[in-house]
């Protein structure tokens, strides 16, 4: 059983008259259990040179609906105006601008409707990091022709 810990802090000295300092941490467990998430894509780094949507993970057929998954995505661009659009299937979630990251649970509800997709705002090349920590995904079957 793996033990993976996620921690987040949100701080600001000028949002309010009083300083903002939120800190939270938890271990990542399988749905409904105290057993740790034991599968991961590892930390991936990819260079995208087209503005088309691409799957960073596909839900090809039988799903793992009800299982827990956490997703990390970071736009590593250093050009402030560049962003990636993050979608689940055809539902746009939001934009990650240069340097921005997200950490969210993800539900494998249905084939392709739940695919995790990203699309860069420019075709001039953009680095993106991502990682999924989960309790299982269905891998796409091989297609040799």
């Amino acid at each position, binding site marked *: 059983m*793996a*033990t*993976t*810990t*996620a*921690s*987040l*802090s*949100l*701080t*600001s*000295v*000028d*949002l*309010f008259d009083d300083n*903002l300092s*939120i800190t*939270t941490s*938890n271990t*990542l*467990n399988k*749905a*409904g259990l105290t057993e*740790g*998430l*034991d599968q*991961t894509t*590892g*930390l991936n780094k990819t260079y995208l040179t087209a503005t088309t949507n691409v799957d960073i993970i596909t839900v090809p057929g039988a799903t793992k609906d009800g299982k*827990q*998954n956490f*997703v*990390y995505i*970071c736009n590593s661009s250093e050009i402030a105006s560049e962003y990636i*659009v*993050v979608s*689940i299937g055809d*539902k*746009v*979630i*939001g*934009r*990650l*601008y240069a*340097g*921005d*990251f*997200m*950490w*969210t*649970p*993800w*539900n494998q*509800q249905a084939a392709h409707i739940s695919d995790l997709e990203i699309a860069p705002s420019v075709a001039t090349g953009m680095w993106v990091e991502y*990682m999924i*920590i989960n309790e299982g995904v269905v891998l796409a079957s091989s297609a040799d022709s």
Partner: protein
Amino acid sequence: MATLTPTLTLTSSDATADDLSFSVTDTLSITVPHTGLAKTSVSTTGANNIIQPATDGQTYYVYVKHTGVDASSSSVTTTLNIELTGDVVIGKLAAGEFMFMPVGGHSLGVQLQASSGTIIAEYAYFTKA
């Protein structure tokens, strides 16, 4: 305009053969509207628990945490749905779990929905300048 600094850290000594240990920090320029850290009792009807208004193309940074208790302060193991308005499920938080992500580029808000009973959720949102 103000600055918000989020930092995410992921660590594990046994998830893979190599230790997992990394941290990422960002500097976000924030404008109004934004919230402080809020708490709300979430019911099983997502449309009654909209925590971030429709984006109208704007980008919001949203933080949500499942506190692990219900409206009567009793411990719960039920899950908290994170949804776009219109009941589009993004993911589900168990007790103690949290999320932080940008939402926007469309006209939808963010709502929360308890899988049963009530769940006390902490949340905040910040508008990208």
